[in-house]
């Protein structure tokens, strides 16, 4: 429960952070809220030699109306996402999902960007962002690029982030104050989802995201297509697990996860209708 020795650098701004990571190379890691990285380090499952602490980079903590979308600074705490009136109005699903991340302590420490950059398929927010087709802004010493959420998550705890890149912003569409629902199925309130189903309505169409149904956060495209072609909710939800390769663990077999996905997607669609 004691991490291996590491060096610690505190960055005062995004530019400082990017410069520091460039200097220390591949064994350096950004530390945001520490809700994912620190436990791994304590168990010595992660042993970065340098931590670049970006938690105090306040210029990356914001939620603003950017005209055609809402921009969320990567270092915005879950609690601020959860309680944002702007998000509640313009993209309520994100606030609603953030409200179910971990527990109060976690939500006050953890950041939306940290959750996204960690790339855990069992996390709640990445699935919501995939469903919304959010855009991520990545910055390095050589400039800035944007990438769609579905392209960002590339594998088990793997993302399109290069080692020298910092996720700086998350852009979500103006999906409105209603028409969404999040069904998080877990043993205990603060646990990861065994399976989660998030539904949002974007431009009148239902979008469905799945938590913990594969190596990456997923979009239930078969369900969306079925709904678009006029299928009933009950029928559409039957294809919720199509193409998924969910994990097996203490809490659920593959079959059970597939079953849960179908039930939860149906319930989320019904609740968001």
């Amino acid at each position: 429960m004691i991490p291996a020795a590491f060096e610690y650098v505190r960055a005062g701004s995004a530019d400082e952070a990017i410069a520091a990571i460039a200097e220390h190379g591949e064994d350096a890691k950004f530390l945001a809220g520490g809700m994912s990285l620190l436990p791994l380090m304590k168990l010595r499952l992660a042993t970065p030699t340098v931590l670049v602490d970006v938690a105090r980079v306040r210029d990356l903590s914001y939620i603003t109306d950017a005209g055609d979308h809402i921009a969320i600074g990567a270092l915005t705490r879950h609690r601020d996402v959860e309680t944002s009136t702007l998000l509640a109005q313009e993209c309520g699903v994100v606030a609603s999902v953030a409200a179910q991340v971990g527990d109060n302590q976690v939500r006050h420490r953890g950041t939306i960007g940290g959750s996204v950059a960690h790339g855990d398929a069992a996390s709640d927010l990445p699935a919501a962002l995939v469903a919304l087709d959010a855009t991520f802004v990545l910055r390095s010493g050589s400039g800035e690029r944007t990438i769609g959420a579905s392209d960002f998550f590339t594998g088990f705890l793997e993302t399109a982030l290069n080692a020298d890149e910092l996720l700086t912003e998350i852009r979500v569409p103006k999906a409105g104050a209603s028409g969404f629902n999040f069904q998080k199925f877990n043993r205990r309130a603060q646990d990861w989802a065994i399976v989660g189903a998030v539904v949002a309505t974007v431009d009148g169409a239902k979008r469905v995201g799945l938590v913990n149904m594969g190596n990456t956060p997923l979009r239930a495209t078969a369900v969306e297509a079925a709904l678009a072609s006029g299928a009933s909710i009950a029928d559409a939800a039957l294809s919720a697990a199509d193409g998924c390769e969910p994990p097996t663990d203490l809490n659920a077999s593959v079959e059970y996860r597939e079953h849960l996905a179908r039930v939860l997607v149906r319930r989320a669609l019904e609740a968001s209708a």
Partner: protein
Amino acid sequence: MAVQGSILGNPVKRKEDAGILNGTTEYFDDLKIDGMLHIAFVRSTVAHANLGAIDTTDAEAMPGVVGVYTADNLEMPDVNGFIMLPPTMNRPPLAKGKVRFVGDIVAAVVANTKAEAVDAAETVIVDYDPLPVLVDMEASIADGAIAIHEGQPNNIAFGAAGMGMGAPVEGLMDEADVVVKGRFVNQRVAGVPMEPNGIIAIPEADGAMTAWIPTQGPHGQRGELAGVIGIDAEKLRVRAAAVGGGFGSKNTFHVEFGITAKAAIVLNRPVKWTETRSENMVSMVQGRGQIQYVELGLKRDGTITALRENVLGEAGAYPSLGAFLPFFTHTMACAVYNVPKLEFNWNAVLTNTTSIAAYRGAGRPEATQAIERILDMAAVELGIDPVDIRRKNLMPKFEAPGAPAGSGLAMYDTGDYAAPLDKALEAADYPALRAEQAKRRANNDVKQLGIGVSVYVEITAPAGLHIEYGKVEINEDGSANAYVGTSAHGQGHDTAFSMIVQELLGIPMDKVTLVQSDTALVPRGSGTAGSRSLQTAGSAVFRASEGVLETAKQIAANLLEANVDDIVLGDGGLQVAGVPSKLIGWGELASKAKASGIEGTADGLMHELDFDGQQSSFPFGSHIAVVEVDTETGKVELLRHIAVDDCGKILNPMLVRGQQHGGIAQGIAQALFEWVQYDEDGNPITANLMDYAIPSAAELPSFETYNTETPTHLNPLGAKGIGESGTIGSTPAVQNAVVDALQPFGVKNLDMPASSQRVWAAIQEARG
């Protein structure tokens, strides 16, 4: 102010809490000793192997390291885990020749800082030659299974046969119209006290040592530790600072204490071990772990004719108290029911897992679960309501000690088992619950209701633990000290025992200091375990206070030139009855004690004794659980939990309520959430608090807690224990409720914990 009326029976707030809540109360890990070193253990990563070379070269060269030890250079005797067990299964504190579970200790590193010790421990290289692994009791006792200890070829550590019991009963089921059979698993759980294990061992002059251990019983630890490190017990002082929970596990001697203390002697420096949570989940003794084969014989009308139980109790790799606990299951097998004939056999089985020892209830919850589960199965089979089948078989109210018919092992003190059942049914509004359930069943609702009932009786101050030391002494400033051989670790003894002194002597409880948990200050004691503390140590404080009062009256009578029979308690001291102006304060009585020449005052105004309750006491009660089962997902939600617990006469209802709440939560946790699991290679797969699912407040309803009060004659307080009742009554009630909800699907039994996946799978299977 003189005390108006009795303080006993009032919900007095805990004296302990201010310091605990504001952080000034010190736990052992808070203690900083000059020159203190830190130890880290290299633990086996394989469950069963012949031990090859241990390369400590790199570790010895690491920064800050002052010593690296294996069995080759730190000699200690092998440790016997329980007095009745043969020495063939003794545990070498540092593994010799073999490792037998993941967590077995191979080497130890002592360094200047904890981080240096941990870093160096990571560099120790150990060669293992793997052996077949046994993690399942039934596999352990199968023909051809490898012997985990060479001297114990059948992997049976102990059993009924070793106590001359367990024989078949001829014609056991002859009177039965039906025999209902079940196989129940009472799964392994972990104590997980908020404060983990540890020790600070401080060598002193002339070969003496002080050891700070977060324990439930310092005197027991002293004997064990002295033996392992090879010093006289008189030279070893064991103390506990504030202790953050134990649940039974901290009553056990852990070999880490021995290794740490031995290293401290060798290095002649204080050495500290603070267990990490990851270590805690593999090293600290765990609980339960039974497979029960149960057969209940009944008449068609539901009358029990006989009970047969054959129990396998898991012992782990190095058997400890757990290898004896099925005896308690036997003792309480007939529970609150008239069971004319009982056949009970048990064996404690070795596996390549963490040792099993006491865990809140320790053998009795397993007994309650077995009988309460099989009764529910019988009720379904015979078409009788679960409450009615219980009523039909309940022992009638009794006020004199007696042994229940079947077992004969337990001598119950007092009991009125229908009283808490009646009260629980009324509080639950049982008929309304059944009506709601019927409605949901008729509607084929997705969310089905389940109602579970349990009635229980259990043993407190068990196994000879009914005797305890106590002393009360009065100081010259008028304050008092109460010494006890119990050792609180969260229960609120300071509050409870101070209330007793105030009651008998009129000394306000904030002027009473509890002295405990220190072998130098308390001459003997059996610690806090088996829900024994109030009825034994509390009674000792009661009797010692009476003794002090008697002596003080003689002193006062002499000083006041009055007849001793006219001396009564006054405001802050003793006075002549009806003459408050003739009062001598407690301080003066104490200061005049030695010179008084009155017998027993050589050491001042004090009285000490060993209170003997003569036998164990038997609290009882009834719990009702109401669950909602989502039949699509399998998720179980506990909607209500009603508990009526009878712990005899209640000294402080607030403390009782706290024990009920904690116990109920822990019992529900076993029914719905917690389960220590291993993979087939013996790797623990629930060794952190993410995978080992302790429920939080969010998963539990507000408990509906009540009491009935049936005093015992065994002690002056009329008190029985309450510490474990919650875990004994709640678990079977919740489990029965889950199975009850699934009855429309034809599910007859579901092992604990009732995880959503298990419930879903059971429904799937029942539906075919």
